[in-house]
């Protein structure tokens, strides 16, 4: 009955948990990057009200934000979008398809969710840029591309940092949901450990602590970035 941290260590679960944590972070980072790309594109569309596209973006963000993440993941996974298999197999062979499959589904699902929230952050940040700045840049005869690069993007980035931090925290926590479809990330490993050793308490507790470490460390990182950007503006 006595089953403690020592047994977890002895049975080699620690390395498994660390491996799971690294996959969690990897899924989080890749999904977040994909989400940011989606966010910038969709955020710009929403902000500039590019007519037919903005409707699509609206539908996308309200759909993703109104439907449980778990349902989205189930839908994507069980309906097993055939093209995912095709894409993955096209890049290699069965081995890749097998191990890569759950990962690809995870990144598509979490990326789409993360992207919807990023869109709102980017849109909000763009909205916070004073119109006068853009008008002044236009009056100076700057091209659209330069206005974006020199005026819009830098300001948007600074304003968006706290929001992006929020999205990142949500994204990393949402990765736990892909465990239900079998990707061997932190939650899945804890699940397997809990079931096979019959000691769910210790395994889920460890999982909680590892997630907490990940979120607290990234929080500290974001605090640093915010401070850095604030200093720059003061100069």
């Amino acid at each position: 009955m006595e089953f403690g941290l020592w047994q977890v260590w002895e049975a080699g679960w620690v390395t498994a948990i660390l491996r799971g944590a690294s996959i969690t972070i990897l899924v989080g980072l890749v999904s977040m990057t994909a989400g940011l790309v989606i966010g910038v594109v969709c955020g710009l569309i929403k902000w500039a009200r590019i007519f037919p596209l903005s409707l699509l973006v609206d539908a996308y963000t309200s759909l993703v934000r109104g439907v449980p993440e778990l349902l989205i993941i189930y839908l994507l996974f069980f309906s097993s979008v055939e093209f995912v298999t095709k894409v993955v197999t096209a890049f290699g062979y069965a081995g890749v398809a097998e191990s890569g499959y759950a990962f690809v589904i995870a990144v598509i699902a979490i990326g789409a969710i993360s992207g919807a929230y990023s869109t709102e952050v980017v849109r909000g940040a763009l909205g916070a840029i004073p119109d006068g700045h853009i008008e002044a840049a236009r009056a100076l005869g700057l091209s659209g591309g330069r206005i974006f690069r020199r005026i819009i993007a830098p300001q948007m980035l600074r304003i968006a940092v706290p929001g992006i931090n929020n999205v990142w925290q949500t994204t990393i926590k949402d990765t736990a949901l892909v465990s239900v479809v079998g990707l061997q990330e932190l939650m899945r490993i804890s699940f397997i450990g809990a079931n096979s050793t019959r000691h769910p308490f210790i395994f889920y507790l460890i999982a909680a602590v590892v997630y907490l470490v990940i979120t607290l460390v990234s929080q500290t990182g974001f605090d640093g970035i915010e401070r850095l950007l604030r200093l720059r503006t003061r100069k």
Partner: protein
Amino acid sequence: MIDLIQLAVPVLLKGLWVTAVLTFISVLIGFNLGLGLALMRLSSNRFLSGFAKYYSNVFRGTPLLVQIFLFYYGLGQLSLIKDNAVLWWLISDGARCAVLALALNTAAYTSEILRGGLMSVPVGLVEAAQACGMSRMLRFRRIEFPLAIRQALPAYGNELILVVKGTSLASTITVLEITGYAKRLMSQTFAIFEIFAIAGVLYLVINLLLIGIIRAIERFLMRHETSSVRYLAAPQPNRSTVGS
């Protein structure tokens, strides 16, 4: 397709009811806990504010799924819990356990939202109320709380939607709510897309309804301001940051 809708909709509506009940009870408990935590956080007692801060960081820094599994499978394993009739009553049932996890989780987010609202109340107003001889309790009830809730409402609306979405995780601990029934229907009919689409629509309906209610309350609270253009779809995503 018609057959499928006839089969799925009544079953999923049964789930809708469970989802609604789970949300309602969790929010009811979570809001009050959250209010308590927000007040603790703002209190000058270092122990109280420290506890509230750690509570909030722990619950916001870990995934809800982990919390649900920790409560359901983890606590269910401990003899300490099993030997205590009250605790075992709470933990032994999937739905009650889900409510417990959801309520504790939303309390953490609610406390952050309400704290922000309370901090936004102008000091002058509180001082004026003090000068009028209002007691602390009266001041809170008549001045601070109404102003704070008005400020916090848009963010709280988002949090409510997150609770609705969070209830779907109850399906992982045997609760048959919308997602749980959807999964069962899926394995019976294999009409995966259709079933999950109908389930998704149900969630959207609940959430749109909630947004409507929150906006109506907001309009009511802001009736003194003629043209209020404060939107629920606030730009920042709802889950606020850890440790902030």
